[in-house]
């Protein structure tokens, strides 16, 4: 039996052929619909049962993540990064996404997900070459099983689907996780990717970090759907809604979805409700399109604060943890400052290195031209 036959073989409800009266829903929509309320752990009775180790791990990483966001933003102000789209306020999503995956799973981040990439284990400096402006992707995607940060919105969605499909064909139990924003759900590639995933029954999970805005455009101008998670039913996959600032909840929902995908249950669409506390990027002016009160309101619902409260409630926020987390975060920030203090030494000839497996005749000529120009320049400087 081929992988592609799964629906016909395993689902007796599938009509063999297209016949008149093939009218009853082929899949029951009810279980696909998200709950009306987003899933929460912190501040609910479930928080008492959450694994203390996990909560402490989440805490350490959220603190480090916040610091990472701050340091990167500072570096933009110093002209050391070309641009930085901060995920401040969204650290719970970023960290939980990374922790929900196994090392041999694949992550497909969007351009805002540097922190998720770092939380996954990619070197924090290598993760920043794109935004520093020194190289496109600074890490080896194959080695880290992390796709390049993806700028053309939603284009990474079908990539994740294709990779997950290929893994399934190979008999591997690898899962792919694609990250995107609320705005990205409007793109055709989101739609096409989710539909492929559902039809291929691919082991892939989609995490929409709904932070209420696509740059300046609020959600009400982006979608009229009950929730973005409701889009799942149109593909025949389950949609889940989660409080995106509740790290334990995001972690649990994603872990369940990944497990479901891993064990042949197919794709899941997860919508995490969150907020981008900073402007879109350092180049953006958020006062043009949103009120300061909104930011204040969300700061009261800050992911670190929620986690701290829960840890404190259970007596898990000891001094050692706080100190450890702070030290870790500071060490990373110090490393970023040190490394990015000066411009890197780049080889202009690298421009021609990876256009094709072998450069064309034309590229060889162009490389020679640039080499000659650089030599001439060097001569002028030497004089």
């Amino acid at each position: 039996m081929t992988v592609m036959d799964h629906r016909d073989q395993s689902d007796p409800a599938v009509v063999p052929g297209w016949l008149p009266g093939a009218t009853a829903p082929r899949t029951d929509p009810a279980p696909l619909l998200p709950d009306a309320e987003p899933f929460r752990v912190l501040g609910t009775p479930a928080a008492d049962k959450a694994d203390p180790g996990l909560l402490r791990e989440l805490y350490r990483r959220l603190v480090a993540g916040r610091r990472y966001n701050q340091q990167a933003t500072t570096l933009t102000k110093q002209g050391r990064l070309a641009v930085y789209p901060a995920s401040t306020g969204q650290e719970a999503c970023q960290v939980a996404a990374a922790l929900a995956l196994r090392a041999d799973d694949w992550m497909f981040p969007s351009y805002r997900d540097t922190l998720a990439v770092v939380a996954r284990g990619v070197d924090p400096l290598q993760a920043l070459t794109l935004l520093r402006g020194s190289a496109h992707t600074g890490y080896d995607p194959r080695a880290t099983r992390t796709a390049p940060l993806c700028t053309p919105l939603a284009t990474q969605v079908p990539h994740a689907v294709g990779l997950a499909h290929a893994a399934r064909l190979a008999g591997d139990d690898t899962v792919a996780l694609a990250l995107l924003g609320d705005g990205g759900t409007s793109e055709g590639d989101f739609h096409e990717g989710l539909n492929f995933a559902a039809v291929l029954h691919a082991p892939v999970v989609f995490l929409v970090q709904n932070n209420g805005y696509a740059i300046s455009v609020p959600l009400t101008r982006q979608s009229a759907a009950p929730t973005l998670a409701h889009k799942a039913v149109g593909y025949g996959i389950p949609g889940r809604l989660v409080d995106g600032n509740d790290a334990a909840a995001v972690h649990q929902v994603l872990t369940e979805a990944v497990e479901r995908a891993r064990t042949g249950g197919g794709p899941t669409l997860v919508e995490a409700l969150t907020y981008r506390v900073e402007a879109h990027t350092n180049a953006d002016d958020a006062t043009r399109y949103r009120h300061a009160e909104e930011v204040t309101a969300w700061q009261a619902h800050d992911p670190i604060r929620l986690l701290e409260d829960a840890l404190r409630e259970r007596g898990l926020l000891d001094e050692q943890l706080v100190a450890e987390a702070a030290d870790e975060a500071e060490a990373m920030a110090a490393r970023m400052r040190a490394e990015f203090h000066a411009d890197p030494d780049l080889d202009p000839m690298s421009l021609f290195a990876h256009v094709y497996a072998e450069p064309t005749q034309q590229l060889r000529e162009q490389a020679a031209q640039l080499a000659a120009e650089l030599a001439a320049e060097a001569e002028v400087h030497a004089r």
Partner: protein
Amino acid sequence: MTTATREQSGLRTGTMAQALNAALRDAMRADKSVHVLGEDVGALGGVFRITDGLTAEFGADRCLDTPLAEAGILGTAVGMAMYGLRPVVEMQFDAFAYPAMEQLVSHVAKMRNRTAGKLPLPITVRVPYGGGIGGVEHHSDASEAYYAHTPGLHVVTPATVADAYGLLREAIASDDPVVFLEPKRLYWGKAEWDPAAGVEPIGKAVLRRPGTSAVLVTYGPSLPVCLEAAEAAKAEGWDLAVLDLRSLVPFDEATACEVVRSLGRAVVVHEASGFGGAGAEIAARLTEKCFHHLAAPVLRVTGFDIPYPPPMLEHHHLPGVDRILDAVARLQWEE
């Protein structure tokens, strides 16, 4: 092409971004059928602020923040134009216009032809265009060659503040679809211009600098560097003319041929990759039409045939003064 009425007058000083903004505002004031739509064009005024204040003045119906979907934006504009509106679409960056390629090529470019003239589509597609602003990958493409090769589209790119205003007014007034390429790195250059003065209409090239040795043929973002090169060339004893094409389609063959014939030497300069770039068309066409007047082949100075580099390396990719002068030096002066 039609010439838009110029209701505003009086000298203004400002950046190209401001001139474009003024052109949109004046066009919207002059004609209620002009509607702006795109991502973040409303309260934010666009990421480059070209639509700044338009929603405030004309309301969200006239300057519409759309959902994030470029094919949807352009496809919606097609329907709006079918109902008699003149949509002005903003694509946020060149590379983010690619999702709309099917709508552009299969409908926008062809609708007039497909309907024997019954459904012209007066759509302006504004595209912040090219590099040189330190943008990270996918923010600095130069995609004019795709558009210029697509019959049914006009392809326009201003290089001066006055042209930014004038050509955008003309584009909006045109009954044909216009891809309007706004050189990102010229957005913040200031100049004086007179909105009432009128400019050469779309389809007319302008000699920005006369010269007697050879001509640099260019457009859009590469005009300033060509003018700089012409200045620098004086030290080498060359008196270079600089021709600004202003539109690739229509292509002003008459003007270009005249100057090439009179000088016999030409270098085409643009920042897009050279292979299959607009420079190839210009060089091939000028050669075909001016062959016996040429003392040397028409040379091209362009971006390399590579994906656009990261910001810290982009200056090696973009044609600069030295690379242009190197090409001028190869124009076989000895003979």
